Every structure is written in C-alpha cells, then in structure tokens.
C-alpha cells in the first residue's frame, strides 16, 4: 500500500514537471474575427481572419507624418488622451512612463498616444507636453490629426469609447485603456491604464509578445 502511494506520488511529480514545461505563456488574439473558407491545393479549408488595425495618417510631436508604415515590424501600445485632461490622463501617463522607461531602448517597440482634442493639442502643444513629461526620442509618439478619424479609429478599431461630451469634466469621455498591438497589427491585450497592477501585467505581456514574435521569426 505504501509502495503504491509512493509510486503515485512520483507519477504526480513527473506529470507536474511536464505540465510546467508545456505551459509556455502566449497572449490571446482579441477583437472581432471571422471564419473565411478558402481553397488550398484543391481542399476547402476554414481559416480565421483576425481583426487588424488599419492604416492611418497622423502627425507626431516633432511634426513628422506617421502611418502604419512607421510602425512596421513594431509591437506597440496605443491609448487616447488630451493634454488638458483633468481626470484620468495624469495617472495613465504616470503609469505609461513606467512602460516607456522599461522599453525605450528596445528597437521594435513603440507607444502611440492619440489626442482626442486635436483643436487644442497642436504639434507645438504636444511637443511641450512631451518635454514636460520627460520623454524624448522616437519610442513614444503623441499623435495629432483629424478628429473624426481619431474617434473612428478608437471606436471601430481599438474598440474603446471616445467621444466629446461637454457635460463631463474636461469635455471628453474616454476610457483609460492601454491597447497592446502585435507586429501583425492584431489586438493582443487591454489594460486599465489607471491601475498600477494591470500596467505591471502589460510590461510582462510585452516581454511575452516580443519572445513569441522572435521565435516565430526564428522558425
């Protein structure tokens, strides 16, 4: 009886080891998806097409035009803010600074913050904001451009709420989501930018995503 118990224990220990080895973390693919039926080599196969972030055209804090081309081969985190925001933006960008400081010297990573108040947040205003926030270089872009296009991108593509509402403090409704996007422009995670713990998770997930992409390239 005792021998049997010992054997069972050993078996359990082994299976635990195996489980740990196989459990390599991967991030889910989020957003809308659709099944597409296509014919490959005469056979009908069903493939899943994931939602991707489409091309856009905005201007960063240096006055440079930025499109998806400038983000080619990059993992990035996107958020929506405005420089005069009295509510959640300061805490979001206090937390985003942690992400920036962790990855600012990594070549394939970027942060893009879209202003939802482009009328006030001109390139000059954004540059000043960047300087005061203490960010430089090209790893964190503050993007400014057509208001409708910014709102569309937020609502239809990143699937976060952004709208103007003069009844709320500051005049705009927006959520504090940080959206993680992979090199194929697919959404891989949402993190509450006002929550320190979730932002710590974001930093960990960026490391996981970078490892994932690098192994895919290696294959």
């Amino acid at each position, binding site marked *: 009886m005792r021998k049997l118990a010992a054997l069972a224990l050993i078996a359990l220990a082994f299976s635990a080891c195996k489980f740990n080895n196989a459990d390599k973390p991967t991030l889910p693919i989020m957003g809308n998806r659709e099944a597409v039926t296509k014919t490959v080599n005469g056979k009908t196969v069903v493939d899943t097409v994931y939602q991707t972030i489409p091309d856009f055209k905005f201007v960063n804090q240096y006055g440079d035009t930025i499109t998806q081309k400038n983000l080619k081969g990059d993992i990035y985190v996107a958020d929506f803010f405005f420089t005069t925001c*009295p509510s959640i933006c300061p805490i979001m960008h206090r937390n985003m600074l942690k992400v920036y400081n962790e990855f600012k010297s990594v070549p394939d990573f970027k942060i893009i913050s879209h202003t939802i108040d482009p009328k006030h947040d001109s390139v000059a205003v954004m540059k000043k904001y960047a300087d005061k926030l203490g960010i430089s270089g090209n790893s964190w872009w503050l993007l400014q451009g057509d208001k409708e296009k910014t709102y569309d991108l937020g609502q239809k593509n990143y699937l976060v709420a952004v709208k103007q509402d003069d009844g709320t403090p500051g005049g705009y409704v927006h959520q504090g989501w940080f959206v993680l996007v992979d090199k194929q422009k697919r959404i891989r995670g949402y993190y509450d930018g006002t929550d320190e713990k979730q932002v710590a998770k974001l930093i960990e997930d960026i490391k996981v995503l970078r490892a994932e992409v690098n192994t895919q390239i290696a294959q």
Partner: protein
Amino acid sequence: MKLKVIGFVCVLICIIASCQSDAELEYKRYYTGGAMMYMSKCQNCHGANGEGLSGLIPPLTDTAYLNKNRHQLACFVKYGIKETIITVKGKAYEGAMPANVDMPAIDVAKVLTYVGNSFGNKMGLIPVDEVNADLAKCK
C-alpha cells in the same frame, strides 16, 4: 484577588487611552478625513506619494514652499490655479489646476492637514477657522 488586579489594569488602560488630548483627536479626525479626500480628489494628478508628474504636475513634497505659502493653499484647493507659474523645488510649473468650488471649508482644512503632514511635511493641524480666514482673502 486576581480579578481585582485585572480590573485595576483595565481601568488604568482606559484612563491612559482617554488621556489623548482633544487637540490630538481633532488632528487625527482631520488627517484621516483628509486622506480619503486626497485619494478621490488629488491623487490622480499629484500621486499616491505626492510625487507629482515629471514637469507637468508639481509634487507636494516641497515643505519650504508649503510653509511659505501656507495661507494661499486653501485658495489653491478651492479655486484652482490658472495661468500662474508656480515654482516648486526650483522647477517652474505652468498649466491649470481644477477648482473645487463646492468643497466646504472643513473639507479644505482636512485635505490640507493631510497633505501638510504627509510626504515628509510637518505643518501640524490646519484648522477650519484658519481656512475660513484664508479663503476670505482669496484673489
């Protein structure tokens, strides 16, 4: 006998506990109330440790500044700051601070007592009477 000793000790503890002066109790009431208010009204911008945010939002850790401007602080909390450049810890900050026009003087006093005695500051109690007098002089 044993019971008597225990009883005596209990009475002694009660006496010592109630020895906390009224002033001390008042301070604690202000401080804890102010802590709650700070979390809901100030922390987003000024941070959990009063550290501010880079060059955008000033920290609340400049004890010399707070002491020097003690009688202005109530005005800052209640009416906000507009188009004034504030120099804290040798760094100039511009931009606006939102007003809290609906905040009663007692709450202003509580939040100031909290800030004035946190993050390395030691200003002591900032009573509501002082706040009322300061608010009357706001520009």
